[in-house]
């Protein structure tokens, strides 16, 4: 996980190579089309971006997940990481994960988050961008509620 050089440390903490890779080549593109898929969507009225997340549950587990929409690098990478992180998990696990992500985005030190998701920690330094990272998680929440 290296950062582009010649940038302020906080900026390179946000624009890590990992995030840019997810942005360039997002995972989980496309809301699954199967019957029973639940979709949640969030818009950011300020920048005009929108992300929707679709999940297919198998009992208590997330069998399928994917996202659609337009977003900046942070919004897109967050959605992409989300799909990787939640696939195969139980709803309870995912809710705990969402809570941990939210805390991380508020700048708190969190335990238990694994893998690529941790790369979003740098966003906390940019309050105006936290909303971007949060969008997919809120959309997922809507999908699980609805």
């Amino acid at each position: 996980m290296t950062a582009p050089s010649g940038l302020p440390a906080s900026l390179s903490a946000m624009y890590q190579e990992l995030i840019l890779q997810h942005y360039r080549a997002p995972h989980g593109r496309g809301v699954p089309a199967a019957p029973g898929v639940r979709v949640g969507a969030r818009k950011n009225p300020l920048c005009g971006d929108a992300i929707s997340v679709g999940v297919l549950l198998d009992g208590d587990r997330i069998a399928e997940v994917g996202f659609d929409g337009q977003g900046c690098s942070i919004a897109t990478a967050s959605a992409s990481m989300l799909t990787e992180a939640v696939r195969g998990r139980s709803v309870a696990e995912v809710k705990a994960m969402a809570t941990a992500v939210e805390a991380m985005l508020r700048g708190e030190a969190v335990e238990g988050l694994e893998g690529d998701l941790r790369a979003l920690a740098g966003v906390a330094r940019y309050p105006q961008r936290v909303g971007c990272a949060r969008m997919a998680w809120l959309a997922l929440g809507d999908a699980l509620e609805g």
Partner: protein
Amino acid sequence: MTATPVLDALGADSSLASLAPRADFPLLAAQPALHYLDSAATSQKPQVVLDALTNFYTTANANPHRGAYALAAAATDAYAGARETVARFLGAKDADTLVFTRGTTEAMNLVANAWGAAHVREGDEIVITALEHHANFVPWQQLAKRTGAHLRIVELTADQRIDLDHLAALLTPRTRVVAITHVSNAVGSITPVAEVVRLVRETSPAIIVLDGAQGAPHLPVAFDTLGVDFYAFSGHKLLGPMGIGGVLGTRARWLECQPWQFGGDMIEWVNDHDSTWNVLPHRFEAGTPNAADAVGLAAAVRYLEALDMRAVREHELALLRSAHEKLAGLDGLTIYGPPPEQRSGVLSFTLADVHPHDLATILDQHGVCIRAGHHCAQPLMRRLGTSATARASFYVYSDASDVDALVHALVEAQRIFASVAD
């Protein structure tokens, strides 16, 4: 920040000084490395405006119109004087036809309710354009919805100017309102007002409402000769304080209006079950007026008058040309809007592979403040096929170094995003 070789290659014109001394603007003076390129959202304030506010509060603070003592007279005079000054700046002889509001948004809601609700009926037509800011879009959309009138939207040319042929095609004798922006905040297009007026007057009895939020700050405006019915503007975009703006109207149109907000100052006589109304402009200014900010606004327009609005326009055009040329040289960069001559100092663009929101954050790290988003013009964004653009906008305190910093930071942003292999 030092200029990169890339910049030199692009031919930075470092000779373009600011029109107004940066030292006049305390925020800019305190942050020499700040490149404020978001004046279309709100402008920075010169010291004279802050002084005018302080001076009002420390020498003339009382409730205007209501007191028989000298301090109240001073407040009343200061407020009336501000009205005279601002009306003159916008080329209106009859100062009483200037109604102060919080800004353009309140002004448009006022016109839509005070004139619109009294005159627009089911089956009538309201014409707006795809270029409008939400402030000149949603009030008319909702008026149409409420009254059963038809909302007609003038579409745009390929370079985001109002399509005058389409306008002409939409106008009918049932058209009651034509509400158009003087200058687009999103892409900078300047409306050919004389053309629009001619077309409208030829075919319909409609009132013409101009959204001058980006006109008044950047172009000379002569309301009495424009030929429109209402002209709305915001003080905070033309060096004035927040919380004040207004709308000019012809006396004849004002007299066709119903009061919209009710309360002190706007009444003549309050009986138990009905009331009569005060004269212009008070009839449309309910409650304690924002005299302090009106006085601040008057100081702002005096400052602009001293600069000369023709010079303001020339200055912005020069910056725009230079920036346009430099940005056009960047790979993957798309600029929206017509050629600089038909634009105010607004540069709206996208950069391939870098989302505008990311651009804004990276530019901010270089001290360059630009706006990223829909610019309160979602109908336009839909037509552009994008959710957002990046927008840099200039004003009297902008200079060549701001343009250079913009270009430099854009190159950096490209580098960051290019650094990742696909």
